[in-house]
């Protein structure tokens, strides 16, 4: 509890050692593979999914993200799962949401991290196995000053 919230120091020598190593990034290929894994053989079709994100992101640490799927959310016709993917963070997966008829509406909102300007994809799998998709292009601004 009393641990100081850590500060960051890049410019000074202490940070130098860590600069040599950096995590691998996801690639568009890795993202496509993850999306195919989610779709499970179905071919994602554009439509029915709305992905609401700002086009210009002030800070990539918390990007408001809302997914809405056009579905009656009845026992006979509903969204089973929604997944979010990106192509340039270290990992392609962002989150998966499990939904069902009890949701009433297929509406989910969260905040995500984006390390760079890139596209984000949302996939929704319906109970009939069909998969629908939407994507958003985002510009993530860089901090002007690197802080210590």
């Amino acid at each position: 509890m009393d641990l100081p919230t850590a500060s960051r120091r890049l410019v000074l020598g202490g940070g130098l050692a860590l600069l040599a190593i950096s995590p691998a990034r996801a690639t568009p290929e890795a993202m496509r593979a993850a999306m195919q894994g989610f779709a499970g053989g179905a071919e994602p079709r554009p439509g029915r999914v709305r992905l609401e994100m700002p086009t210009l992101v002030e800070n990539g640490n918390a990007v408001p993200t809302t997914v809405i799927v056009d579905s009656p959310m009845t026992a006979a016709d509903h969204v089973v799962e929604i997944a979010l993917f990106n192509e340039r963070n270290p990992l392609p997966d962002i989150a998966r949401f499990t939904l069902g008829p009890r949701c009433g509406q297929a509406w989910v909102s969260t905040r995500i991290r984006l390390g760079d300007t890139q596209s984000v994809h949302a996939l929704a799998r319906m109970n009939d196995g069909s998969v629908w998709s939407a994507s958003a292009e985002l510009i993530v601004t860089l901090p002007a000053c690197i802080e210590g």
Partner: protein
Amino acid sequence: MSRALINVPAKARKGEVIQIRTLVQHEMETGFRPLPNGGFAPRLILRRFECIYDGETVFAADLHPAISANPYLAFRTVATTSGEMLFRWIDDRGAVREERATIEVT
């Protein structure tokens, strides 16, 4: 200490679609943050969220390091019955934290 904010309407009509919002304190350490010693801070994130209401998991989320620190999750559900809603977060080590909220359905 970890704090959570839960927003559930106090009252709703049966069959009404209500919005639930949750905000929980957690650093969501990604595992990709380099340390001065050349390694990386070990990953420690909340990896699972569940909302249990009226005997059923009505909404769940599997989270990855790309979810922001202090995760915010909002979703909708149908008001079915008066009683307790259970919110559960599970981290990488299996630690569970739970919060409850009540709703009156008329």
